């Protein structure tokens, strides 16, 4: 451990100094000291007001939310989202069905994007956060911690379950003037999933870097 000019502890292991006790704002680059927050507290950047740290969830919360979202994800994908009746005939679709519909036509490239946004990336994100939080319960970094945290970070912006939920609502209204429309069980699972995935916020997962210190820092 070193004592730097500013009185902040520095570590020199990799050949250059690192400052685990500092935090730099991603919006404006202003440096602050990392603080120990109590549950429910936020640390804001004094220069631009961006959220620096958040302590809304502890590891038990994170694990519980992750496992619940895994369950809801399975229900949301295994059951029909929306069904319609017309003259005694019935038709219904799942999330995957809507991807296949786009894949069948000139819009095929879009099917890939939609499949990623509402099925594949949420599935990977939920698996990652379940895996990481279960090990974190025991105070440990899960095998593959670094690469999984990086994967989670890069997928974060592209997972769109909430938008899917709104799309189901809009589709319902769109078709209701022409057909007898029913919503499936999947919709309720999807609604719950949208809430849970919003609750598992970015900075709560990011805080695992600090709550589970490794030898490197």
């Amino acid at each position, binding site marked *: 451990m070193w004592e730097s000019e500013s009185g902040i502890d520095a570590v020199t292991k990799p050949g250059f100094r690192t400052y685990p006790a500092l935090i730099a704002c991603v919006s404006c680059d202003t440096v602050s000291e990392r603080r120990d927050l109590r549950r429910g507290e936020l640390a804001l950047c004094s220069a631009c007001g961006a959220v620096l740290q958040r302590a809304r969830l502890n590891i038990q919360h994170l694990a519980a939310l992750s496992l619940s979202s895994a369950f809801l994800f399975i229900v949301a994908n295994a059951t029909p989202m929306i069904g319609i009746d017309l003259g005694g005939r019935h038709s219904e*679709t799942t999330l995957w069905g809507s991807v296949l519909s786009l894949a069948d036509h000139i819009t095929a490239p879009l099917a890939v994007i939609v499949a990623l946004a509402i099925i594949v990336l949420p599935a990977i994100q939920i698996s990652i956060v379940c895996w990481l939080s279960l090990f974190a319960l025991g105070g440990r970094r899960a095998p593959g911690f670094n690469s999984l945290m*990086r994967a989670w970070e890069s997928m974060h912006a592209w997972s769109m379950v909430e938008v899917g939920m709104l799309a189901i609502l809009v589709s319902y209204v769109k078709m209701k003037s022409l057909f007898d429309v029913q919503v499936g069980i999947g919709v309720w699972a999807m609604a719950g999933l949208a809430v849970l995935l919003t609750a598992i916020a970015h900075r709560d997962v990011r805080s695992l870097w600090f709550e589970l210190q490794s030898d490197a820092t």
Partner: protein
Amino acid sequence: MSTIARAAEIGYLSCRVCGLVCERANAEGRGCPRCGTELRQRKPASIARAWALLTAGLIFYVPANVLPVMHTQALGDTNGGEDSTIMSGVIEFWQNGSWDIATLIFIASIVIPSTKFIILGLLLIVSRAGGGARLTRDIRLYRLLEIIGYWSMLDVLVVGLVTAVVQFRGVSEAEPRVGILFFGLVVVLTMLATLSFDPRLLWDRRKRA
């Protein structure tokens, strides 16, 4: 620390993945000691990439609005069915009395994409010109872009769901059309443009000015 210092000014940088603050001199271009990500003081070629992606998005935005996004055919249609565009979908909701859903789609499909073009274009011009008199406002605008970005996917998902379920052969059928492909690409391109832009550049230019 009592005074506000910016990492770049005091010779530090922070890891974009795990946030670890490092001494810049020897760290730039090397792997982060905590998570292994390549350490960079700023996102590389941020402004050029953001301009390129935003321009591509703006070009695709034209066919996305002009070309049909969905084709519907009902029993008794003698003219081979009906094509709808993004805007005609909004108008149809409005005329059917669903002013709330019409407003929602109008915001997601027209207002949000236009806002992204205008705000990101403005931020790119401001960051290049080195003006930046209203930094707090600019940073708030950027955070707004990050939040609203993906809601534009709404119409794409609606077309996917409706065309999947309205499949009564010979009676009532719906098919996606190429306009929605362009629209989806606009959403992806503008999201990539937003992610490429490094908001810290706004503050870097201020010091020089």
